[in-house]
């Protein structure tokens, strides 16, 4: 086989391979939403983060505005500290409320931002303390059981 024809087929093969990679990157994966161009970081403290994971989404009004980039334990206050990386196109007021929510009944956990009414905006590196922890199913059930039991005791 002549060298030119060989080069042609190999070129075809390489282009096909890179097209497959591009397909995986753009159609199967999602490069655009996974990486934000400009970001700033906020820190939020929770009593309990439940099943929140690093790389979990941060949503406001259902739209992904950032990602959870770090979760660590603060040994002084015994709280969980989550670092949120937010797209710098989006600014949030100082009294933004942060809560850990679950997508669907058994879905992944994510952080929801509910904007408040403050005039001042959160600046990079700020710590948000107005948080609501994850709902732990066992605690919910035990609370329910205690209520039921005390109801039964009252009736007697």
């Amino acid at each position, binding site marked *: 086989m002549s060298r030119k024809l060989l080069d042609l087929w190999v070129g075809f093969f390489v282009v096909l391979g890179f097209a497959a990679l591009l397909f995986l990157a753009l159609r*199967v994966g999602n490069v655009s939403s996974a990486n934000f161009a400009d970001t700033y970081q906020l820190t939020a403290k929770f009593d309990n983060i439940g099943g929140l994971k690093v790389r979990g989404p941060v949503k406001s009004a259902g739209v992904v505005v950032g990602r959870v980039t770090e979760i660590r334990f603060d040994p002084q206050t015994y709280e969980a500290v989550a670092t949120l990386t937010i797209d710098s196109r989006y600014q949030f007021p100082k009294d933004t409320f942060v809560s850990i929510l679950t997508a669907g009944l058994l879905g992944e956990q994510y952080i929801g931002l509910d904007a408040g009414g403050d005039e001042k905006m959160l600046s990079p590196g700020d710590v948000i303390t107005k948080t609501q922890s994850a709902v732990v199913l066992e605690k919910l059930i035990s609370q329910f059981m205690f209520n039921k039991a005390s109801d039964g005791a009252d009736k007697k």
Partner: protein
Amino acid sequence: MVEKSFSAVIALIRGIGHRLNTGLQRLGFAARFFVMLLVYSGQSFRRFHLTIREIYFSGFQSLLIILVSGLFIGMVLGMQGYETLQRYGSSEALGVLVALSLTRELGPVVAALLFASRAGSSITAEIGLMKATEQLTAMDMMAVNPIARVVAPRFWGGVISMPLLAALFSAVGVFGGYLIGVVFIGVDEGAFWSQMQGSVDFRFDVWNGVVKSFVFGVAVSLIAVFEGYDAVPTAEGVSASIKRTVVYSALAILALDFVLTSFMFRGL
């Protein structure tokens, strides 16, 4: 009687020692061979058309088996995944299941196994026969380095082809899953793609798959060229080397896959 069983034990121990000794010796030679290969690679890159020729033979000619297997594996994943997911009422997650299992595991691993048996064995056979017919010695006599002229292009051809083949395998597999899930079974098309895009991350899933297939490419190509170069130059010796290429490649791929996976996806 006692003396007989005693000598049998001695023979057994001697056999184990001999195997261990040859095994270690071959491993040492393989390491030295790999270093020589890297050293002479520069010399072989100056005549890059040799490598291009090998990409054609091991990469382009493996396209058919890779594409067809990828399509069928994707279709099977689509069917099996749907069967299991619909029990939990989450058949929309089919896209996620197909894409993640292909890009993370099946794409790199199965493509590498196919590559080892399709291209690796033929590389070993070619180099082994060249050695058996004393072509490698003839090259040495003409002051042509056989490692730079014969071995390095085949090695790099395999290393370059492997990630491209694995990416093609995954892409065609996702298409196969789409074909079964959306076109035949009727999973919602929007949910299929959007859930897939929501949970497949480029850096963590797709790129790690590419890294894996690159490592497999290096392992398979090295085993193939080494077994060929180290073959006993007889018909029987060459056949034994080809067998060893396929067996060692499969073992290396699966063992490396375990190691790489535990590094990449730890704590996720």
